């Protein structure tokens, strides 16, 4: 934000507090009144209420996002992108034209082409090709919008993932969820605006950088809600202090702070009081929203969720509970999609079947649930990995009975559903062997631009001045793919 404006806002806020006799009511008022907006690249951030709701550049098609990241990158050729020609030529040497001058993560020499061992068929009115790995997506194919022509430049996990989330392969820039909460604030001040849920026990490759606020104020950082231990770090009162005691102790703190603000006259002291009151409320609202045991048996069964477990299914259900409560951006990371074939769990046959068995059911349940609650129309769901996988067998495991594919940046599939996308769409095409995009290339930055557009932002205008330059999610690239919009 313009430093000049920032200073103006601080002054204004202070003057406002001053004018209303430094009352706590003023803070409460400013939390409730959500008339701030984003005009051009100026985002009004008031330090007392940095997460208050803001209106974007234009009317949004989606108001919130659930991003399902399959960490490691699922093999598109065995799930979404059917290549009969590759099946025909399976086992042949990979043609030189695809290898010349290229480096792959774990493959050297001349690998063998690998047709999918999966069975594909067409589903829905859209006639979308899907494999038997994702049986629960078959019935909702018409809700989804597939982009088969995604590409990136990165073929190592962490840099590729950082590119997807921050627009740059190096750590240090704000992530998509941070940009959007920076631009939009959030609907419920008693919960974090940007929540991260992690399943299969492992952080994304990029670590916390994948949901970092980078150089944006840290209030826009993704907050990991955990299924073990404290749902949010340090949210539980210490042992030996229950809610009643905490309330009393906060009351004392409040009184002393009010006394201090009277003695010293610092308006920031009132901001401090508000901060502690909000923390107190969050201590109730976070555990509540995270407690899926309050869901009906049917709901739990539909998602395959089990209270007390740490699973992707639980996280899908939590995602719904969170967006329902007004959380702006829910980011799921699910580990275990790096199908190299180095172990049976990483194989394209049984491994892929098992992995999806724990995944496609909750995804389908989430989409149906949101639809039934009327939330799907303004909730954007995005699902995919950070790059593609090779149409040939991975070098290290070429002799194994378990089939696997190497990392591949040139093409991969992602899909979206919900708010403002063209449901039942299959956009972009790869060549007959799946080595490159032949129609409608979509770079990661283009997808980001499109997501921003759906949320009501001109991606070139939601910027933040840092080190003398106006930064944005899409770096200096990106264009909105109009064909994906509903």
């Amino acid at each position: 934000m313009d430093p000049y404006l920032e200073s103006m806002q601080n002054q204004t806020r202070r003057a406002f507090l001053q004018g209303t006799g430094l009352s706590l009511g003023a803070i409460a008022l400013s939390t409730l009144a959500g008339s701030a907006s984003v005009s051009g690249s100026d985002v009004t951030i008031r330090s007392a209420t940095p997460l208050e709701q803001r209106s974007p550049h234009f009317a949004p098609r989606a108001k919130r996002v659930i991003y399902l990241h399959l960490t490691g990158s699922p093999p598109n050729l065995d799930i979404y992108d059917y290549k009969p020609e590759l099946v025909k030529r399976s086992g042949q040497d990979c043609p030189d034209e695809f290898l010349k001058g290229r480096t792959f993560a774990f493959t050297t020499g001349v690998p063998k082409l690998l047709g999918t061992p999966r069975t594909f068929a067409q589903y829905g009115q859209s006639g979308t090709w899907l494999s038997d790995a994702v049986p629960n997506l078959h019935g909702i194919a018409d809700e989804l919008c597939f982009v088969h022509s995604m590409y990136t430049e990165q073929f190592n996990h962490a840099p590729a993932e950082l590119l997807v989330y921050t627009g740059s392969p190096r750590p240090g820039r704000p992530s998509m969820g941070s940009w959007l909460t920076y631009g939009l604030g959030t609907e419920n001040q008693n919960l974090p605006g940007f929540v991260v849920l992690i399943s299969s026990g492992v952080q994304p490759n990029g670590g916390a950088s994948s949901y970092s606020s980078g150089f944006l104020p840290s209030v826009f950082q993704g907050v990991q809600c955990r299924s073990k231990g404290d749902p949010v770090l340090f949210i539980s009162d210490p042992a030996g202090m229950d809610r009643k005691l905490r309330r009393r102790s906060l009351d004392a703190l409040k009184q002393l702070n009010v006394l201090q603000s009277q003695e010293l006259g610092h308006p920031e002291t009132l901001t401090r009081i508000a901060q502690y009151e909000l923390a107190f409320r969050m201590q109730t609202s976070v555990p509540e929203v995270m407690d899926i045991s309050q869901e009906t048996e049917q709901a739990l069964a539909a998602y395959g969720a089990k209270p007390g477990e740490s699973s992707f299914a639980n996280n899908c259900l939590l995602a719904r509970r969170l967006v329902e409560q007004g959380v702006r951006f829910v980011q799921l990371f699910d580990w275990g999609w790096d199908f190299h074939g180095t172990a049976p769990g990483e194989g394209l046959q049984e491994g892929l079947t098992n992995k999806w068995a724990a995944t496609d059911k909750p995804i389908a349940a989430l989409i149906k649930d949101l639809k039934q609650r009327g939330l799907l129309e303004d909730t954007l769901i995005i699902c995919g990995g950070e790059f593609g996988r090779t149409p040939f067998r991975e070098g290290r495991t070429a002799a194994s009975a378990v089939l696997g594919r190497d990392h591949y940046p040139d093409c991969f599939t992602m899909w979206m559903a919900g708010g403002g996308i063209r449901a039942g769409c299959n956009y972009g095409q790869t060549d007959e062997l799946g080595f490159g995009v032949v129609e409608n290339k979509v770079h990661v930055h283009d997808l980001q631009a499109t997501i921003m557009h759906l949320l009501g932002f001109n991606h070139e205008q939601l910027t933040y001045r840092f080190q003398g330059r106006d930064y944005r999610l899409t770096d200096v690239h990106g264009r909105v793919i109009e064909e994906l919009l509903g």
Partner: protein
Amino acid sequence: MLHFRSILSIFLAAAVSAAGQSSADEIDFNRDIRPILSESCFFCHGQDGNKRQADLRLDVRQIAVDAGAIVPGDTSASELVERINSDDPDVLMPPPDSHRRVTPEQKQLLERWIQEGAKYSGHWAFEAPQRPAVPNVNRVEWARNPIDRFVLSKLEREGLEPSPEADRATLIKRLSIDLIGLPPTLDEVDAFVADPAHDAYEKLVDRLLGNPHYGERLALPWLDAARYADSNGFQQDGDTWQWLWRDWVVRALNEDLPFDQFTIWQLAGDLLPDATTDQKIASGFNRNHLLNGEGGAIAEEQRFVVLFDRIDTTATTWLGLTIACAQCHDHKYDPTTQRDYYRLMDMFNRVPEVGTPQFFSTRIRVDKPYLELSTEANNQTIVELESKIAAAMPAATSADDAAYAGWRLGFDPAVKTDKDLGFPEALTAIHNKSAGDRSEEEKNAFEAGLRKHFDEKIRPELVAKLPALASLEALKKQLSDYTNDQVPRVMVMSDDQPRETFILRRGEYLSPLEKVSFATPAFLPSLAAGAPANRLGFAQWLVAPENPLTARVQVNRIWQYFFGTGLVKTAEDFGVQSEYPVHRELLDWLAVEFREHQWSMKHVHRLIVTSAAYRQSSRITAEHLARDGDNRLLARFSRSRMPAMILRDWALAAAGLLDARIGGAPVYPYQPDAVWESLAITKERDFTYPASSGSDLYRRSLYTFWRRTVGPANMFDAANRQTCRVRLSNTSTPLHALTTLNDPTWVEAARVLAQKSLQQANDLDGRLTFAFRQVICRAPTETGLNMLRRTYEKQFAIYNADAESTIKLLSVGASQRDETLDCAQHAAMTSVCMAILNLDEALTRE
């Protein structure tokens, strides 16, 4: 909020005049015009040739005049004026779709500037600072040193009064936060408050500047700039030994190593003649970067990522320039070209590094070059292991020889054979000859080859079967495991592998264009004649008197450290897009003072903290709020929330828990479960958090292990230690409150502080006052004390009736509880201390 916009416009008017430009003043190109041109025009009409439209440059006067865009003295003939005022969207500049806009006030300024002759001047920060005259002021008696004369002169011009001096308890707390980051003892507070000496304050400052914790405190912002961490980042996130560099920084600051040397050592210590170990370690500044060891990482590609990071970090830290853009194209605003960028890169492109971290143990991954610095303890262990190996050797050797002899019995080497014995080719070739046909040379080679073959292929299989060999091998492995995992290897710089450097098309390492060699950016002074064209020459150039940036950038960051905001607010950017300094002359005066005072950092720190400006009260008046809400003019002191690292130190020290040892290997204090454990690729290394015990739990935050992929959980708002950071955010979220309320660190500190207060005094008021003062320094007011007492009494009633909760609360943390104390009293006091530690005043530097 309905009032918001209207209030904004009122203050907009007020602030325009506060910012300096009033209509009677002469137009200053740098202050008034360049920001407008830079913001609205240079993107297409600046120095980036690739983006330039219509061949027009507005950053070079002659070109702008030749093109008719500007006709000095004649606004009506100047196309620029016509364009910015046009109603025709095809003519209007900036174009409507650029989303840039020139405001009516800016248009007026541009027109006035052209009318008055369109005088250009170079960007102020690119011209070497000269020491300006210290201004005359009315209230001479207020000024304690020249800093104050500059500050006061501006205040007097604006008709603002400086604030009275803060009270002594506030001053000692403020100084302690800023100079050592630890609270004073109550005796120290009392002595200072009561000290009648005229130089009581200065004596305190000198004492704190000489305190060894000074280096720890002042190191923090430097570590943020240096993106210092204890691991590599990315997927494997191997641990490093860079803490040896961190310890050097603390030492150098404590010794007040002059900043020119501080600079030269860190950029080129390894290149100094007869470089000492410390000088080499210092060069580790440029090895604090991330390293990606992912399976598919291409070393050369990663090496370039490291090179780019080195340039960005060095440029931001010393020059206050953001030049990363020039990796792909000429900078849009600053005169940094792509050529400049790669010419700079050439000085870093000589390091014998791989680009990816090398495996030493599952824990340790570092890249070459590094210094191996075994400690006394290391040497002792190594000697012990070596002597065990020597002792095991005779038995092993005879077992070995016996085994070899036995193996040889299995065939007759002297007899020619066609049987495949699995020998290497050369050996087989000789063996295939009969003994008589073998030359002397072949015979010797054959004997040696046999033994080699035995040692390499046969022996390993025998080891497990022969106890003497097995124990020797186990010892050898123990030794190598130990040295790989436990001998410090701090990464440093070296120029031992010069390479050719090319401009890279769009920054892609596989797309070299023209070859370049090292030079300083063309728009800045060139290297001194005869200076070495390497990092050393560069470092010397940075601290040469004609360098316009280094001294200014540093004193600005020092100013930012003490006052919260730099004289140039954009501390990371002194380029043409930067903020024009509020006190340009003060900045230049300080820069020259710094340089001419042997670059002594302590000298500048002392100057600042002994100024009247620094000693002011932070109390805000209605006039302050209305006139200068952000306190850029310094009519009062700026209060700020302490950094989380210092908050933790403060709480530990106030409780008497702090282990104040300086330096050494990182420690692992309390951290919630599953923060590290959930890091990626657990199969490649063990990410179990190796929690510390004993006094290591209470070391200063500086020593907490900093894992690059997930920083310490309780250090909110900290720099991410991934890229260079010279300006920190200071935000306020409920999550911060939850940390200082619920993290066992703070709960335990409250419990131990409570215990201490119960031990210190026998009456409640005395106990409450003690605890309050330990944290806040000043004594509570009577009203405050009444509130504390009431809180205590309520909490006591509750805990007295709830033995279970009482014990639970008193069991938080590892330190021993004084079991002779009454539990309910202790728990109630703990609860009060938690409130005290969370008071706004406790969290804030007043």
